């Protein structure tokens, strides 16, 4: 890996993404063993520094680190000195003084992991920053796609929903285009970022027109607050125009799969029977694959010589 940290999905070349996915496929086997642990990162300490709530990402990173025998510290802003007003920088300096080897950070402010990486010598992994990026989610999504499709070259992926506020969409677009996939963003005009045409992907406002041509349909979470802020008139209208229901599932190609990064709003962006569809939905696979992909990343980022000066 040419990168010390994983801050953006754009940090990785196609070769490096392939190496992460290949390594993850090997490490997935550790989970099938009687002893679900390897001694690889013994004596290393990983800190999960979470300033925003998270279930799957934090637990996934924690399990990944523990299966590699690293020690794990879980820090959440609630109940810490952050609630007493301690700054990110002082928190970082504290962790640095305690000698952690890697910091997995989730923060509400876009760019926070970059600032953190300037302050600490530890490896920094971005686990979601504001509305910006979530590179490990993109990697586990690619891993899940690769389980079903032989190659990313020409793979048609639609990312549907609140692209404007979605760090999952940004990281996926970066990683998927690096790998040669054909990405189409589908959203109402109000939920598309400015200058989206510079992303090098197709854009559509019409889900029904796009669906039949896709290999992968990735639904994004839509937040109730966005409706209150006036990005769309009502949840019902959003669901009718951009929700994936059984009728739209039937319009998809027979081999196409449905993904969702979670947490889901059942009945809004995705209907419950679509989310639970055994043939089409790979949402549970995404969660399981997250552990293997994060194990691979921690191994590749922490398993080399320290580049500390």
């Amino acid at each position, binding site marked *: 890996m040419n990168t010390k940290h994983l801050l953006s999905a754009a940090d990785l070349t196609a070769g490096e993404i392939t190496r992460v996915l*290949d*390594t993850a*496929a*090997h*490490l997935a*086997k*550790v989970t099938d*063993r*009687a*002893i679900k*642990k*390897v*001694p*690889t*990162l013994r004596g*290393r300490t990983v800190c999960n520094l979470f300033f925003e709530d998270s279930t799957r990402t934090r637990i996934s990173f924690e399990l990944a680190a523990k299966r*590699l025998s690293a020690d794990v510290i879980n820090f959440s802003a609630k109940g810490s000195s952050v609630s007493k007003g301690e700054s990110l920088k002082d928190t970082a300096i504290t962790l640095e003084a305690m000698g952690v080897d890697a910091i997995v950070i989730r923060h509400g402010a876009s760019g926070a992991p970059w600032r953190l990486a300037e302050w600490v010598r530890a490896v920094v992994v971005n686990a979601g920053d504001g509305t910006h990026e979530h590179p490990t989610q993109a990697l586990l999504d690619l891993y899940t796609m690769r389980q079903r499709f032989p190659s990313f070259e020409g793979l048609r992926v639609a990312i549907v929903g609140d692209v404007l506020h979605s760090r999952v969409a940004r990281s996926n677009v970066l990683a998927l285009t690096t790998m040669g996939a054909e990405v189409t963003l589908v959203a109402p005009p109000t939920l598309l970022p400015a200058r989206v045409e510079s992303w090098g992907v197709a854009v559509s406002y019409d889900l029904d027109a796009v669906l039949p041509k896709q290999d992968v349909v990735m639904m994004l979470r839509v937040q109730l607050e966005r409706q209150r802020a006036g990005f769309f008139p009502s949840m019902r209208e959003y669901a009718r125009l951009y929700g994936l229901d059984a009728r739209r599932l039937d319009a998809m190609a027979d081999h196409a799969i449905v993904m969702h990064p979670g947490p889901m709003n059942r009945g809004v962006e995705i209907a419950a029977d679509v989310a639970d569809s055994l043939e089409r939905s790979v949402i549970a696979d995404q969660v399981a694959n997250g552990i293997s992909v994060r194990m691979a990343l921690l*191994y*590749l980022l*922490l*398993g*080399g*010589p*320290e580049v500390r000066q």
Partner: protein
Amino acid sequence: MLRAASNPTGLEAFLMSGRTVVMDAADVHRALVRIAHEVVERNKGTDGLVVVGIHTRGVPLAGRLAAKLTEIEGRPVPAGAVDVAMYRDDIGMRPPHATHDTHLPFDLAGTVVVLVDDVLYTGRTVRAALDALTDFGRPRAIQLAVLVDRGHRELPLRADYVGKNLPTAADQAVRVQLQETDGSDAVAIESAPRKAVASR
């Protein structure tokens, strides 16, 4: 190293070219056949025996040895593969090793494992493999078979079956090529790249 003089033609050729083939395809085959017979003799048959190769080149060698054992005794001897990347003692000291699948299609408990690698050198890979196998079960015994023992051990380990003892200098490299991974079978000694350039 003076000990290399035990193979004078090899040494001369090595000094001339920087690369000496010390085993050809027929030599590799004969070494494996002999090892197979030694395994059968020592274990009084192949009862409870499994063969496990260490990635990368130990795996095809293990497959061949298991096939030979099956042929000699007339009953199947299973083969498996073990990856040691996650068990190495140099993690964090050099770029991460590539990973492979560990595939052990049998229960290790109570078996006699013949662990196979291409080259035995410092012994650190074998040490890692012993740890990896322990995570899968408790074999009755583990024996070690290698195609080449090149010396320079850094751990108190030895091989039970050796295809060829090859005294080498630490700055030389032993290159094992196998049909399955490289298109043909051969073992060669190469001098360090810098030396090879300087000699020209």
